């Protein structure tokens, strides 16, 4: 009973914090730029979805102050340049380094002239040169946090087994998840050679899961909803799949057995394309799901402030709560799907002939 209460309080606190955050931001836009709430919400949402060079907890619009801390900026532009993001003053000031001027514009660093003018191309995006930005951004901080968290959690679990065969405390929560990944994701999809891929599958599953869950906290972190992150994850899967591919796998791609020669030639580019679309789908699925979730939750929260009356606001609060719970499910689901599909692709690549002798009609001509 007490634990449930704590959970409820935490949940309530989450929403209050997010609300405060939004409220402050929106107010800031109102006072400084004379922007209406609608645009403010939109702007805030856009900022939330993007990576940032600041770790901002909340901002006070009326005083124009941001509560948080700046993160280090590391850029490569004819040499390594490191400075704190506070130099940008939230994009208000140019940073001059070795005769070059850098401007922070919509969470991106651009090279500008001394006046700091951003030029726009035909598609409405800045055409200014972008230096290679290796900054420790908010997302990087989040990932490092998750990495440390995971290391501590699973190290504790591993140490737990040295003392007793059944873990105690929080490790007891992690154990069934580990067993779940092993027994329900790796084993059925990869087959007898699953052991080699367990480290990757477990790491990716918990990495995505914890980042997804972190995205639901009021810190405004949107890591898994960033295409660079999902690209990285999908790329690792892609590389692992290609490197574990056995003779049968490559034969199926380049010279499909059991079909006539003209079909073999037609199938080859299709299979090669399929090789690439699989990780591509992985990348887009995770990215789109997480981003869409954030957009929906933030938009519903924004609606509370747009309507600002006693009937609509509680109603949208309810909606937000409902969607957040669905997002909680999605957080687990997406981690599961990504791991499951990775396992499936690996399984397809390592599958041996004798593993499933029945459903392989290779030696029998189809026509």
């Amino acid at each position, binding site marked *: 009973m007490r634990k449930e209460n704590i959970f409820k309080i935490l949940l309530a606190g989450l929403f209050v914090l997010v609300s405060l955050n939004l409220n402050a931001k929106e107010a800031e836009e109102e006072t400084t730029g004379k922007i209406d709430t609608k645009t403010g919400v939109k702007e805030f949402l856009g900022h939330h979805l993007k990576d940032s060079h600041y770790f901002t907890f909340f901002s006070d619009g009326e005083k124009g102050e941001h509560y948080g801390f700046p993160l280090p900026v590391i850029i490569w532009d004819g040499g390594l340049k490191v400075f704190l993001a506070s130099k940008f003053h939230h994009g208000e000031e140019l940073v001059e380094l070795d005769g070059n001027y850098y401007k922070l514009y919509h969470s991106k660093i651009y090279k500008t002239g001394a006046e700091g003018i951003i030029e726009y191309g035909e598609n409405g*995006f800045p055409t200014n040169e972008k230096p*290679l*930005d290796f900054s420790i951004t908010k997302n990087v901080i989040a990932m490092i946090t998750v990495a440390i968290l995971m290391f501590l959690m*699973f190290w504790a679990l591993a140490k737990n*087994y040295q003392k007793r065969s059944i873990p105690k405390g929080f490790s007891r929560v992690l154990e069934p998840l580990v067993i779940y990944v092993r027994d329900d994701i790796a084993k059925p999809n990869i087959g007898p050679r699953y052991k080699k891929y*367990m480290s990757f599958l477990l790491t990716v599953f918990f990495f995505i899961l914890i980042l997804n869950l972190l995205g639901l906290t009021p810190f405004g972190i949107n890591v898994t909803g*960033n*295409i*660079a992150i999902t690209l990285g994850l999908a790329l*690792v899967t892609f590389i692992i799949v290609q490197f574990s591919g056995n003779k049968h796998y490559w034969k199926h791609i380049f010279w499909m057995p059991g079909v006539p020669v003209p079909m073999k030639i037609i199938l080859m580019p299709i299979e090669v394309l399929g090789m690439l679309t699989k990780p591509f789908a992985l990348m887009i699925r995770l990215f789109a799901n997480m981003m869409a979730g954030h957009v929906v939750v933030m938009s519903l929260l924004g609606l509370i402030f747009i309507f600002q009356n006693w009937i609509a606001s509680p109603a949208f609060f309810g909606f937000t709560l409902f969607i957040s719970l669905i997002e909680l499910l999605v957080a687990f689901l997406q981690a599961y799907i990504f791991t499951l599909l990775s396992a499936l692709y690996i399984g397809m690549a390592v599958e041996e002939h004798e593993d499933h002798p029945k459903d392989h009609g290779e030696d029998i001509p189809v026509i």
Partner: protein
Amino acid sequence: MDKLINDFSFGLFFWQLAILIVLIFLLKKFAWKPILDSLNTREEGIKDALDSAEKARKEMQNLNADNEKLLQEARLQRDSMLKEARELKERIVTEASSEAQEKADKIVAQAQITIQNEKNAALADLKNQVAELSIEIAEKVIRKELSSSEQQYRLVEEMLEDVTLK
């Protein structure tokens, strides 16, 4: 699509890959390997325990069956032994009784023979004594009454008459 490409951050991509790969290898060494090994050992331990329990149960069953069989055998043996003993007893009894009968018969027969013999001996003895007595008497008579031959004759006749009477 343009927005996606514009928003793509190579730096973030780089950091993500670096963190993920380092994390995979770190966790592999410090967490996944020991965890999965321990899980395996534990599961095998449980499986072994279940197997041995099943084996013990089967052994117990076999033992029970053996015991039952042994008991059955013992019962059968007891029964046959009892039967044998009873037969033996009867045989001994009949044998003993017939032997006793035989012995008794034999003893009786011997006794009869002995009696006959004794009787014959006694008769012979008596006859001898009678003969001696007769001779003595005859001597005496002869001595006493040898004077008269008539008397002698009479006496002999009387005496002989007596003898044949027997």
